[in-house]
């Protein structure tokens, strides 16, 4: 595409978004800022879930379509633990551990034996997601569960400029997402395991030839990726509700986040999550019946101009 068209599209899209922002600010600035905060906090949740997805993909080329099921499993486990202990933080840890263990079991017992067969692995994850979703439905039934937030995050935070009050819990999602992003960055860039993972992303065969136990690196990555889905499940169980079907919703969100952001890139997941979260909430606030269309248009635009996602590298 020529430079002119690049500029043309940038101005056309950026300009129309700018016009919309000015219009929204002038007509109802409170709605605009509340929607923006909603979008960013939703983006934080999407990022937590999708970063695990993209981490696993980046290293193993394994599109884990059971990621949504791991999310839902984490949520349910967290709910049960919170019911029994009354500690929200323990529930978060339990959700992380449960999903991580299931993910580890999947990697060790199945995916290890079909390394390199991308399509087959993907189909296996589809089968697993059906089975897990049905087992969860069997155990927990179809009713809606909702986890209550811990006391110190319950209720609204008052006295904010323009928007007056905002849910403390939702606001806390934002630093949580940033913290997890930073932790992942530190893990990947400052530790030995992270170094091995990055080396594996670049060249699996060479890493193995260098004497590293690649299977162990794979297992650790799967552990972290699946655990992040479970953690997202518990965190999301407070804000969204837990009900069969949520797994598909979060899977779709993860898919779009990594397609838009670029597969295998954690930074890309952050960018994609921000775009998707904001687009979804603004769509719901300003054009409720067509909010999905916005998401879809973003997907189409990104695929049309950058088929590998905004920050994607050629495989």
């Amino acid at each position, binding site marked *: 595409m020529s430079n002119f068209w690049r500029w043309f599209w940038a101005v056309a899209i950026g300009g129309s978004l700018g016009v919309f922002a000015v219009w929204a600010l002038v007509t109802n600035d409170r709605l605009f800022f509340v929607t923006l905060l909603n979008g960013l906090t939703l983006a934080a949740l999407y990022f937590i879930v999708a970063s695990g997805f993209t981490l696993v993909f980046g290293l193993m080329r394994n*599109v884990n379509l059971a990621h949504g099921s791991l999310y839902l499993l984490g949520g349910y486990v967290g709910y049960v633990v919170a019911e029994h202990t009354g500690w929200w933080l323990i529930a978060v840890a339990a959700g992380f551990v449960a999903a991580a263990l299931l993910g580890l079991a999947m990697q060790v017992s199945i995916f290890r034996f079909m390394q390199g067969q991308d399509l087959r692995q*993907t189909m*296996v994850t*589809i*089968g697993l997601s*059906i089975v897990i979703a*049905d087992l969860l439905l*069997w155990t927990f039934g179809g009713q809606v569960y909702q986890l209550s937030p811990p006391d110190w995050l319950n209720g609204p935070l008052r006295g904010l400029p323009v928007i007056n009050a905002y849910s403390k819990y939702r606001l806390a999602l934002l630093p949580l997402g940033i913290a997890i992003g930073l932790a992942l960055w530190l893990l990947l860039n400052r530790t030995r395991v992270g170094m091995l993972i990055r080396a594996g992303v670049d060249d699996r065969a060479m890493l193995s030839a260098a004497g590293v136990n690649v299977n162990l690196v794979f297992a650790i990555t799967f552990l972290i990726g699946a655990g992040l889905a479970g953690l997202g499940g518990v965190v999301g169980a407070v804000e969204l509700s837990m009900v069969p079907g949520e797994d598909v919703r979060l899977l*779709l969100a993860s898919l779009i986040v990594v397609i838009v952001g670029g597969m295998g890139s954690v930074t890309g997941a952050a960018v994609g999550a921000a775009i998707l979260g904001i687009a979804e909430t603004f769509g719901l606030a300003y054009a409720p019946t067509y909010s999905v269309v916005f998401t879809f248009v973003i997907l*189409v635009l990104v695929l049309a101009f950058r088929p590998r996602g905004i920050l994607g590298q050629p495989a």
Partner: protein
Amino acid sequence: MSAAQWRKAMNSGASAQVWPREQRALVPAAAPSGAPFASADENARARLWQRISARHVLVMALVLIYPWVATPFFTFQIGAQALGLGLIALSLTFLGGYGGMISLAQMTVAGIAGYMVAIFGTSSMPEISLGWPWWVVVPIAIAIATVCGTLIGWLSVRTEGIYTIMITLAIGVAFHYLMQQNYSLFNGWQGFQRVLTPEVLGIDWRAPIPYYYLALFWALAGYFFVKYLVRTPFGIALQGIRDNPRRMNALGFNVTAHRVAAYAVAGLIAAIGGVLLVWYNGLITPGSVGTGWLINILIIAVLGGMRHPIGPFLGAIVFVLLQNFAIDVFDRERFNLVIGAMFLAIVLFSPDGLLGLWQRFRARLAASDVQSRISTPRPSRRFVKGGSQP
């Protein structure tokens, strides 16, 4: 390579999988030589008659006689539904087995056709449905769905392999949510009820036996169309692209155009299946194009096997039988568990589906048969896989 050899390669049922690479590379060189093809036509016809075996006649007779033997329940719920679903899964088999592209959005294409039938035709929502006669509605619905299928293809061929699965899944799920949220055109989660099969030539096509034959006609048409298409130059080129897109590109084939064309063909097949399915159900709702059904189509195609167009129909029969009778054997609500576990087992242990199982079984049988008489080496796996047709 001589034209005769080329013809032989074309007519041996082996499709592209067992060809040596040099033969595949010669596709464009052999095509323009016009003269030998006049006799090739007669030759092919003679071969066609030779290739029809007792097995084919038996299956044909069976599907034709079936509704007169079976109860209306078996004719309609099992037979006709399996044919309709099989037709949609056939479009995926064509894309996946011959084009190497696994699209989860084929049910979406079928759903678009179904929604168009409901919107342009008659339904329980007269404020939305336009109430046009069926002979206008059906071509429009199929045309729109085919165009949508092509557009989905145009979008997803920008990516490869597993990316395709993800993007088509995203498109399919997004379409499902759009249907659910939009009330002005798609009537939200209620969808459209009472989308009835028209009465034509004094026959009520909704009755089990006429509907069965309607579905059978289109299923056979789809089956033979795909069988024919994969042997045309287009089909051969498509299989070449499946096996090695870079080489085909270097040979001067437009890889993207072939892929998009494959999506268009698959879209047409899925659209016809969609029209059949909306008539079968008599309704269409967002649930009919939900994730469950997107994946069910994949399950049907994989269950049967993607190496031959008969696969999806086999898969559909097993799927529909399980759907109707798993309830009796297992818990009422546990159908998903059963079908999920079965899908998992097939993917884990027999990637070629039921056809692969059958082929392996036959190979083993033949091998043990030969071995018991004279100890010759067993045929290689690769030969057995591609060389004989189920």
